[in-house]
């Protein structure tokens, strides 16, 4: 059995994560949303990881899998460090030893073999397009907006509607766009946070070459996870990347989109961590919602950069926390219920899954609805 790898070939763990830069102020732990339900203390990990001989023991602690990679700790760190990356570094050591739980193993192997973490065949990735009038992109044909569909949206029957509705909205707006009908593969967001560093490197290389080949002005992503990953972790991508809410807000402003119906509902927008905290997109989704006649847009107490994580990121779709305390998604839905919101609008596939589950678990199905933004907009267009 290969031993755990203490550091990368060229850097020690301390150097890689700039552990000596930490002043132990505690702002990371103070803001960490999962501390209310798990034993995770990220400041402690940053402190302990300085001792290389402790790393192997630290990597075995269950808490390293509680982190949702929401980036609150990174946003709050006064030294500009990313404490969560220390936890990902520890996960990497475990991944390299092969000793990860079966759900993580299956997700990683599925990305390696089939280009998606859901153990689905490559060949069925585009089935969501069936029966739709969708324009396809070709590398040699110039296109304004090249769409990248997230694996979860492409395969999950609950979420395929996001891609379908996007096509309907784009056709209505007469937008210049193209979807990919072959070669599309996982962006690697969750592979990075699950700690499979080398697989992520391979994915970045392959996707960069693939996307750079298209004569597109920009890439539009449907998931904030793909969006944040392409923006922050693809240094050689030759085009800007947008989240779809930014494109729709632009089409609305240009007068290419309008709503044929009004919506007399109280709506609250849940900021996805990967769209807000990690990418700084807060206003476009709200602009879209405010443009709908009849909508009363209310705000969570914890909104924008203080938004409460739904626990869907950081590879958590494949790792169940040991904690039996209330899920953050349930806390979020209770907050929405207390606000009297009839619709919780979200713009992230993982947030849809976690919040909808929480809403059902709390028995609020009759009173409220969790809706992906494209669901609301396509119904009104």
């Amino acid at each position, binding site marked *: 059995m290969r031993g755990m790898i203490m550091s990368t070939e060229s850097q020690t763990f301390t150097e890689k994560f700039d552990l000596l830069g930490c002043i132990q102020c505690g702002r990371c732990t103070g803001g960490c949303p999962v501390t209310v339900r798990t034993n995770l203390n990220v400041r402690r990990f940053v402190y302990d990881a300085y001792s290389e001989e402790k790393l192997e023991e630290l990597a075995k602690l269950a808490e390293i899998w509680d982190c949702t990679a929401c980036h609150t700790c990174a946003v709050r760190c006064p030294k500009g460090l990313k404490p969560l990356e220390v936890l990902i570094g520890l996960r990497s050591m475990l991944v390299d030893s092969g000793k990860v739980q079966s759900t993580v193993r299956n997700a990683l192997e599925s990305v390696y073999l089939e280009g998606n973490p859901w153990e689905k065949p490559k060949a069925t990735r585009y089935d969501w397009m069936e029966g739709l009038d969708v324009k396809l992109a070709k590398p040699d044909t110039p296109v304004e907006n090249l769409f990248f569909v997230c694996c979860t949206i492409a395969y999950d029957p609950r979420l395929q509607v996001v891609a379908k509705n996007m096509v309907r909205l784009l056709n209505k707006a007469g937008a210049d766009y193209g979807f990919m009908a072959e070669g599309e593969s996982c962006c690697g967001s969750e592979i990075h946070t699950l700690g499979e560093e080398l*697989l992520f490197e391979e994915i970045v290389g392959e996707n960069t070459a693939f996307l750079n080949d298209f004569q597109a002005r920009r890439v539009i992503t449907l998931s904030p996870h793909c969006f944040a990953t392409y923006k922050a972790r693809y240094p050689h991508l030759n085009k800007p990347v947008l989240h779809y809410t930014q494109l729709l807000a632009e089409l609305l402003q240009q007068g290419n989109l309008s709503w044929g119906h009004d919506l007399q509902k109280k709506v609250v927008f849940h900021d996805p961590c990967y769209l807000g905290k990690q990418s700084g997109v807060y206003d476009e989704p709200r602009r879209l919602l405010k443009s709908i006649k009849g909508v009363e847009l209310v705000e969570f107490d914890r909104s924008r950069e203080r938004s409460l994580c739904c626990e869907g990121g950081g590879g958590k779709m494949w790792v169940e926390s040991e904690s039996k305390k209330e899920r953050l998604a349930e806390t979020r839905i209770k907050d929405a219920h207390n606000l009297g919101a009839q619709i919780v609008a979200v713009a992230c596939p993982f947030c849809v899954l976690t919040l909808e589950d929480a809403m059902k678990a709390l028995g609020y199905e009759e009173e409220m609805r969790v809706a992906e933004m494209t669901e609301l907009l396509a119904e009104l267009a």
Partner: protein
Amino acid sequence: MKIFVCIKYVPDTSEAVVKVNAEGTAVDSSRFSFDINDADNYAVEESVQIKEKYTGTVTVLSIGPKESEVMIRMAMAKGCDNAVRVEDARIAAFDPLLLAKVLAGAIKGQEFDLVLTGCMAADDGQMATGVALAEELGVAHAAMVKKVEILEGKVKAYRELEGGLMEVVEVALPAVLTIQTGINEPRYAPIRGIREAQKKELKVVGLDDLGVAAGDVDASASRIVVEKLYLPEVVSSAEFIEGEPEQKAEKLASILVKGGLV
């Protein structure tokens, strides 16, 4: 310990829409994903664990196309030392008895203590290859093994039987064990390991290299003729039992008694 582990590259049909080709002779696999057969994955893990405990070598053996090399490299990333892939269009791959002959041809003439393989392939579900392989090699076997203990010159094998029974047998080495899922927790094949596994030997051989006569393992040698493949007709035969709970229970009991089910 010198171990061979036989693995098969199979389609995942758990959620897929299965269609038979136009000739009615094979399943259309163009939209399937392929990976190591589930039970074989446990056999790989068990082989590597035995090697880690007792030292030795593990050789992967597989009959399959070039595409299956990704699976073989993953097995080597987990700790197997080398591999042999057999590819020959003449092999009647639908017949487990003939596959066993081919596998035996790849093993014969070499020393070995154990041959491990999954107890069942997810594609044809025959559960025959491993046992037939023991016969071809002229060694003892234990099937459906859920736990292995290595003893002096023999193994103690715990066999999972119907109704939750566990049969414990001692089998003299060399032996073939067909491994049941759940015997261990298969590890992940990290990319770092897969890259290192590229340096390990993977031999590709045909029937002639193995000294196996094609006439012994091709369709003419098989006692199986695939006449026709078809999807079972979907019929509806559900009966809804109406009435108050007591009436429902009475009707249900009467149906079960009449049907000889209780």
